[in-house]
């Protein structure tokens, strides 16, 4: 199952087999996923748990893009290009959630739609 490896490239860093590295990262990703699953059952404050979850998923995210997707070894422009989309999407999401979370954007509750009888009887 071994084909001749081409590590006699002229003029750039030798392409070592990344096989071992990829396996390690995959194990790390699996462990982090397990950690996330455990985190939701911990009895801590919501804000802390949310932060931990966000950090853990960000770590997984970064490992996949920088290692599996090879950004670490590619030209920086690819990273910049992707991060433009990522940052814009994140910023848009943040702005939308702030907009819809604002007091002024709360949907009218059904209690307001059908006023209680006491209000109706005053006329």
């Amino acid at each position, binding site marked *: 199952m071994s084909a001749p490896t081409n590590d006699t490239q002229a003029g750039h860093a030798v392409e070592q087999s990344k096989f071992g590295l990829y396996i390690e990262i995959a194990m790390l990703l699996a462990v982090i996923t397990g950690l996330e699953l455990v985190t939701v059952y911990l009895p801590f404050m919501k804000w802390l748990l949310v932060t931990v979850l966000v950090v853990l998923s960000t770590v997984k995210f970064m490992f996949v893009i920088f290692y599996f997707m090879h950004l670490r070894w590619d030209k920086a422009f690819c990273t910049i290009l992707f991060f*433009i989309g990522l940052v814009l999407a994140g910023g848009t999401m943040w702005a939308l959630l702030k907009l819809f979370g604002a007091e002024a954007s709360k949907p009218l509750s059904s209690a307001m739609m059908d006023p209680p009888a006491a209000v109706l009887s005053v006329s």
Partner: protein
Amino acid sequence: MEALAKSDFLAKEEHPTKPFVLWRPTAKTGLMSWLTTVDHKRIGFLYGASGLFFFIFGGIEALLIRIQLAVPNNTFLTSAQYNEMFTMHGTTMIFLVVMPIGAAFFNFIMPLQIGARDVAFPRLNAFSFWTFAVGAIILNVGWFMKDGAPDAGWFGYAPLTTRTFSPTHAIDMWVMGLQLLGVASIAAALNFIVTIINLRAPGMTMMRLPVFTWMTLFTSFLIILSFPAITIALVEIMMDRLFGTNFFEVSSGGLPILWQHLFWIFGHPEVYILILPAMGIISEILPTFSRKPLFGYPVVVFSGASIGFLGFGVWSHHMFTTGMGTAATAAFALMTMAIAVPTGVKIFNWIGTLWGGHLTMRTPMMFAIGFLWMFMIGGLSGIMHAAAPADAQQHGSYFVVAHFHYVLIGGSLFALFAGIHYWFPLMFGRRVSEFWGKVSFWVIFVGFNVTFFPMHFLGLEGMPRRTFTYDKNMGWETGNLWATVGACVLGIGVAIYFATMIYTYYKGERTHKDPWDARTLEWSLPNPPPEYNFQAIPTIHARDSWWYQKRHMAEVAKETADQIKADEAHGGIHMPFQSIYPFLASVGILVGAIGVSIIDPANPNVYHGFWGPKIAITILGGLIMFVSVVLWSLEGNEGYHIHLNEDGSVKGEDAHGGYASHGH
């Protein structure tokens, strides 16, 4: 220069892949040559011709609107017809006129400005055009159907566009048409980004790029980052309409305001998509006709980038009156005011370009100076909108209509008209008559201002937009009558412009190379440019590279000779093969789109279960598209090589442009 080193990323010609099933098209003339073309110049021409064709549609829709509004309580159009008119006028002008004409210039001019032979993915480029054509068809087929054309505004607000309030297929066609135009635009924009980043001639650093190419790059980024928002919005409304989901269904907790947010997250960058190419064209024309380099090139480029970036942060200024709350309203008002700064900076730089220059008042220059002034007026009314309290009066009134027509006609359209005049000699080898060009400019200029300037006052006096008539004691009659008269004059001006172009295309005076003594690389080519663009890919030494080349002819001649020798040593000039698959894939998309948006769902009395004509036709379209894409990917992208004679003609090509032999 290793410009034509055999790339490991293109399949080797020694083992060309045999195309499955269908043949390798080689027609250079006739219908097949157009259906299978991958030449960026031809594709640009197709976009331009389509844009100008739909301009007639959009213009007629506008004139019908103006006739209806000429007098109070008019009965020329019914309210339903009026709704179709203003919807289709807006949708057509934005998506089927300004964007395609912009795309025409991106396609034709940009590769020539960077010293490339074509775009990075020629077949994808063709696919973009054909999918655009399909989108245009779907948008307009309603005119010929009982259901009518789309009629819920170009912005399609929910819940008007839900099935409850728009039960016919008109809105389905609007949604589907826009979705396909989005696909086409994104594919094209991805192509242009890769081309500009990766296919520049040696020595063409980013800071030596012509400003038009920079604006192409920024516009492409805006397209790929803003269209997904409307894609999602359209998916959501389509799911509500087809499957009864609850995205905008209030009784189940849906929030129609979400449509507005998603639409304008797209919609605001969209207006920068409409104006940045125009700014790029102006940035080429002003230096040429002032015989001076662009003033403050790095600042103009940086301002373009800022406008693009900030454009993503202002969308809710279209929603100031929706009750978002003080903090949100203030934030968006501030951002909107901020975006005026880079825009103003550009205007000052253009004025700086004119200042002290040797001005040559040819027609493109007149449209360009007209742009400066008219776009500025539009910008000023825009700043007035940025103040949210003032906008409470202006929103939904004719003041807004005046604002955006000043920036879209006075801005985008003037620049596109200028560009058509300017690049006509390059594209077709003929010079447009100065006299008729100037006549068309003045009639358009006068007509345009007479139409839209009164609308500022109409808006401040309370006339609402999107309403089919008005009563006679509102004080709006004079303004409307003037606007209609102006619209007719504008129509005449546009007709003169069109007539001049068409006449020039067939019978215009032939012109020599570089008639304007211009500055950028596209003018170094013969007019019209040959299929392969450059005899030898040039080496770039400075900004305004053609200007440099004209003053260093000996150096250029030597570099050209060396490059030609190098190309010959590598086997000649590499050209991409033509292909039918982009066209076929779009045909599949057309069939599928008809299935989704036009065919009625199965009548349960006739068809049992899931299957019916709607599903069948949609699946059939999907299959045609899938098979075409598979064959496309199996076709291989190796292309063929050509060799040139001394005079630039292709060896082995007969006089009719056919091929004496394949490959080499």
